[in-house]
């Protein structure tokens, strides 16, 4: 996967300035950009009328998995748990 470089701007430089001055994890930024992408592409956008096929397989599974990932990473960082880099 190659995240679009513009996608993580214009986010704040660090999400935990009071507790943690490390740069935000690139992995986590990528995860957040990906779930924001999923939110938009799978739940937003124009749906055409007519004989359209929404041919996406396996969406729910991946979607739920990513949501859980982003939620658990956010929760772990708040509790000060060191995350694998």
């Amino acid at each position, binding site marked *: *996967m*190659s*995240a*679009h470089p*513009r*996608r*993580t*701007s*214009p*986010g*704040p*430089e*660090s*999400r*935990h*300035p*009071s*507790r943690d001055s490390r740069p935000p994890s690139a992995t986590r*930024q990528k995860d*957040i*950009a*990906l779930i*924001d*992408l*999923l*939110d*938009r*592409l*799978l739940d*937003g*956008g*124009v*749906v*055409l*009328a*007519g*004989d*359209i*096929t*929404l*041919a*996406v*397989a*396996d*969406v729910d599974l*991946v*979607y739920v998995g990513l*949501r*859980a990932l*982003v*939620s658990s990473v*956010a*929760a772990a*960082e*708040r509790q000060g748990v060191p995350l694998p880099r």
Partner: protein
Amino acid sequence: MIYVYAITDAIELHDGPSGLHGGQVQAIEHEGIACVFSTHDQLEVSSDPELLWAHERVVDHLMDRGAVLPLRFGSVLRDPEALRAILDEDGARFRLLLSRVRGCVELAVRVGLASSEPGALAGGRDYMRERLAARQREEDAADRVLTPLRPLARATAHRPVQAGNTTVSESYLVPRAAVEPFAAEVRALQARNPGLSISCTGPWGPYSFVDGGGR
């Protein structure tokens, strides 16, 4: 079959990115608006991130050139004639939607909330109490972070909190010239609220601002 990416009023595909599975991106025009698509002998659409980004790259390219209505991922039609029929039928609605998003991009803000521990709940009453407490946290976070951002946007789309999720998110339709001031405000809000985890991504196509697009 054809895979459809977006509707736009600027048909400039020169030097643009390829589409899903490297498909060549084409457009058909109808009375000043165009539908952008790629043709495929067979097409499997899964939620592979590479395919999702391929869709978004095409939308992104078009967004730099004109007003764009991104389509939902996975929009497949039989052939260009089916697409032409839709443009013929719904052209007026698409033009109205294009006028609403012209000059704007979408920014996504996500605010992390304190997580609950469902395993520690003793029974139904605790569950309800926790539900109410969670709702209160959500509203507090929204008050502190999301409300000050709304005046910077032309429109706002709130996304309901999903069960088990610990983030509140909102989408903003922001004029291009206001993207930097918006980002500066997000940074200031993060500095003022160190207990919250704020993320902001974009610019995206206006996926959350195409209401009336058939949903």
